[in-house]
C-alpha cells in the first residue's frame, strides 16, 4: 500500500514539471505584452523597453525559465507584474471562497444525488426513475448562469432571502457565511446532482443484476441492506471518481458562477490574470490547479485501493 502511494507520488513529479514548462512556453508564445498594458497609451518605445527590463521580460526565455523554476523551488512564486503583490498572497486570498464553494457544493450534491441515483436504479422504469432522469437532463442542459440568474431573481430580488452577491468568510460567522454561499451552492449543485445521480444509477443498475445481489436477496436480507451494503459499496469506484473530478473542476475555476455571484475565487483570478497577461499569476494558478488535479487523482486512487482490494494486488 505504502509502495503503491509512493509510486503514485513519484509519478506526479514529472507531470508537474511538464505542466510548468508547457505553461511557461505557452504564455511566452501568446501575443500580448504586460509592459504595454502597464505603460498605457502614451509610452515611448524606450519607456516600454525600460518597463520590460524592470519586469525581467527582456531576459532570454531560458534565463527567465530557470529563474522562475529556481524561485519556485525556494517557495517563491513571484509577484504580480501589475499589482506588485506576492502571487502567493493573491492565491491565498482567493482560496477560501473557492474551497468553500467546492465543499458545500459537493457535500450537498452527494447527499442528494447518491440517494436519488440509488432510488432511480432500484425503481428502474417507474415514474420515480423517470422523474430523477428528467431532473438530471435539466441539470445538465440549463446553463449555469441561467440557473444563477433565476436563483437571484427569485430568492434575492423577489423574496429577499439571500443577498445578490458577495462572499463572507467563515471567520465572520457561520450564519453570514452560509447566507452568502447558499445561492451559488444551489446553482452549482443542480449540475452536480445531475452528474452524480446519473452515474450512481448507471453503476447500480449494473450491480443489481449480479448473482451476489440475487443471493443476498434470496437469503432474506432487507432491501435497504442489499442496496446500501452490497450494491452501493461495490459500485462506489465510478461514483467517487466523478465526485473527485467534480471537486477538482470547481477548485480549478468555475468562472461563470463566480462572476454571476461576485465570488472572489480562483476562477476569476485566473481569467483576470490571463486577460492582463500577468505571467507570474497565470503560471502559479495553473500549476496550482494541476497540483490539485494530481492530488485528487491520487486520493481517488487510494480510495480505489481501500474500496476494492483487487486493485491492491493488480
Amino acid at each position, binding site marked *: 500500500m505504502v509502495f503503491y502511494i509512493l509510486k503514485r507520488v513519484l509519478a506526479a513529479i514529472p507531470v508537474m514539471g511538464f505542466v510548468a514548462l508547457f505553461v511557461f512556453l505557452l504564455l511566452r508564445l*501568446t*501575443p*500580448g*505584452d504586460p509592459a*504595454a*498594458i*502597464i*505603460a*498605457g*497609451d*502614451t*509610452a*515611448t*518605445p524606450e*519607456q*516600454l523597453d*525600460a*518597463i520590460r*527590463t*524592470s519586469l525581467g521580460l527582456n531576459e532570454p526565455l531560458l534565463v527567465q525559465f530557470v529563474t522562475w523554476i529556481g524561485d519556485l523551488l525556494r517557495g517563491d512564486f513571484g509577484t*504580480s507584474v*501589475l*499589482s*506588485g*503583490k506576492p502571487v502567493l498572497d*493573491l492565491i491565498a*486570498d*482567493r482560496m477560501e471562497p473557492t474551497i468553500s464553494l467546492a465543499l*458545500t457544493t459537493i*457535500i*450537498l450534491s452527494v*447527499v*442528494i444525488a447518491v440517494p436519488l441515483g440509488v432510488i432511480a436504479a432500484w425503481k428502474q422504469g417507474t415514474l420515480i426513475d423517470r422523474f430523477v432522469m428528467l431532473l438530471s437532463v435539466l441539470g445538465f442542459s440549463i446553463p449555469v448562469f441561467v440557473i444563477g*440568474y433565476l436563483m*437571484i431573481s427569485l430568492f*434575492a*430580488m423577489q423574496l*429577499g*432571502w*439571500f*443577498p*445578490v*452577491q*458577495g462572499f463572507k468568510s467563515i471567520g465572520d460567522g*457561520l*450564519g*453570514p457565511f*452560509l*447566507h*452568502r454561499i*447558499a445561492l451559488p451552492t444551489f446553482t452549482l449543485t443542480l449540475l452536480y446532482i445531475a452528474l452524480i445521480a446519473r452515474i450512481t444509477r448507471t453503476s447500480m443498475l449494473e450491480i443489481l443484476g449480479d448473482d451476489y445481489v440475487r443471493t443476498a436477496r434470496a437469503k432474506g436480507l432487507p432491501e435497504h441492506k442489499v442496496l446500501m451494503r452490497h450494491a452501493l459499496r461495490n459500485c462506489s469506484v465510478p461514483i467517487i471518481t466523478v465526485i473527485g473530478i467534480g471537486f477538482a473542476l470547481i477548485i480549478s475555476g468555475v468562472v461563470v458562477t463566480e*462572476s*454571476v455571484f*461576485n465570488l*472572489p475565487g480562483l476562477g*476569476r483570478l485566473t481569467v*483576470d490574470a490571463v*486577460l*492582463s*497577461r500577468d505571467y507570474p499569476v497565470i503560471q502559479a494558478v495553473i500549476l496550482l490547479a494541476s497540483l490539485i488535479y494530481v492530488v485528487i487523482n491520487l486520493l481517488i486512487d487510494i480510495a480505489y485501493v481501500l474500496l476494492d482490494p483487487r486493485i491492491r494486488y493488480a
Partner: protein
Amino acid sequence: MTDMTTFDPAPRGLRGLLRTTLFGATLAGLAMATGAVDAQTLRAVKHSDLRVLDPILTTAYMSRNHGYMIFDTLYALDADFVPQPQMVESHEVSDDGLTYTFTLRGGLKFHDGADVTGEDVAASIKRWGERDGMGQVLMDFVESMAQGDAPNTFVIQLKEPYGLVIDSLAKPSSNVPFIMPKRLAETPSTEAIPEQIGSGPFKWVADEYQPGVIAVYEKNEDYVPRDEPASFAAGGKVVKVDRVEWVVMPDDQTALNALQAGEIDYWESPPSDLLPILDANPDVTVRNLNALGYQTIMRPNALNAPMDDARIRKAAIASVRQQDVLDALVGNPDLYNLCGAMFVCGTPLASDAGSETLVEGNGMDQAKALLKEAGYDGTPIVIMHPTDVGTLRTQPVVVAQAMRDAGFTVDLQAMDWQTLVGRRASQAPIAEGGWHMFMTNWVGADVFNPLVNNMVNGKGPEGGWFGWPDIPKIEELRIAYATATSLDEQKKLAEEIQKLAYEEGIYAPIGQYFVPSAWSNSLDGVLDAPAPLFWNISKN
C-alpha cells in the same frame, strides 16, 4: 445555523408550511444581521479593476481615479474648464514670463504626517513630465524646477515663454500631475512607486486591497479642503463618508441587481442596454457626469502600404458615417453626438472643420474616387478587432463594412484587447505581424487640445503615437499652439491642426458618446467631473 443538506425544496402539508416559514424567517434574520450597511461606507462598482497603483506609470483610467483619491494636484479644472488653484495658494509670473513662483497653501500634509514642500512638488512634476505627453512638452520649455526660498514655495524657470504652464499643471486626465512625497517621486518613471502616500482627501487602506476584488479608501481626517465649493475637479474636497470601497463586479447583471438591492451605492458605467431598467427604478439616479463624454476614433497606420498614402487613409475615413457607428455602438440617440471635432464638441477648441463627410455621412463617392485616384490594388487592410471589450467590439465591424462598400478589401482580425495593445506597438510590415488600422476610445478630457491629443502628433516613427504619421507641419503648429498666449490664437491654431490632420487622414473621431453613471438616491452631492470623484458625496 441553517442546515442546507436537509432543505426540502417541495415540502407538503402543514409540516411543510411550518418548515418553509421557519426557513424563511431564519434567512430573513440572517439577511438583517448581515445586510446591515454602515451608513458611512460608500460602495462603488467601477468600470474596471484597479491593478496598477501608480497613476504616473500608467495611463489606465482606474489608476488615474485611484490617484484622485489619495493624491492632490496643484491646480484643477473647474466646470468651465478654467484652471483653479488647488494645493497652490498663489503664484507669480516674472515680467519676462520666464519665472513662475508658486506658494503652497497652509496645512498640506502627506498621509505619513510630513509637510508638503517645494521639493516634493518639483520631484513629482519632473517624474510626471517624463511620462505624460503634455508634461513632456512642458519640460521642453523648462530650464529648471526647484524649491524656492521657503519650503512651501517652488519655482519653475522657463527657457522661453510658454502659455500653458498652469493648464499643464491642471491637466485633468491621464496622466494627472499628482503630487507625491519626494522619496516616492524619485522612483524611476518606468517603475511603480512602492507606497501609496499622498496628501489627498482619502488614505489608501493597503491591508484590504485585493486586486480583482476590492480597493478600500478611508477619509483623511487631516486633510484641509479649500473653502470654495467643489466644481468639476476643483474646489473644496470635502469628504462626507468615512470609507469608500471600490468593489469589482465583472458581471453587469450582478452589478444591476446589487444596486437595486442596495448592496452597492454607485455604479460608474452601466451598459446602455441596462439603463432603461435603472431609469425605471425610483430609488436610483442615472446621470451623465462627464459632459465631454468619450470620443471613439479610427486610427490608420501610416507606415504600412497602402495606408502610407494619405489618399487611401482619407478614403477609409470618408467611407464612414458616424451615425452608423453610433447607432451600432450606443443605439440611444440621447447618449451620443455626431461630432467631428478632434478636440471634442463642447470645448472651447471644438470645430467641425474637415469633418463634413463623417458627420453628414455623404463621403462614399469621395472614398471611391480617392481609391481610384490612388490606384488601390486590393491589398487587404488589416483591421484589429478586439472582441472582448463591449465598447470597442462594434466599431471595427461597422467601419470594415463601410470600407468594403467603398471598394476596400478588409481583413478584420479578431483578438482580445491586450493582444491589440501589444500588437499596435509594432511598426513591422503586415507580413511580420503589423497592422493597418484599429479603433479605440478616449475620455474627452484626454483629447481636448492639441497637446494632450496623441493622435495629432506628427513626429513619425520616432516619438509619434501608434500609427506614426510623419508630418512636421503639425508639430510646428502644436509648438505654436503651446506658445500661444490668447484663447483666440489657440482656437485658430487648433483648427489649423484639425484641418491638416483630416487632410492627411491621420485619424478620425467616429463619434462622441456618453456613459451615464447610476447611484442610489441615498447618495447626495455626486459631482460632474472628468473622472469619478468621491468627495462631496454624503450618504443617508
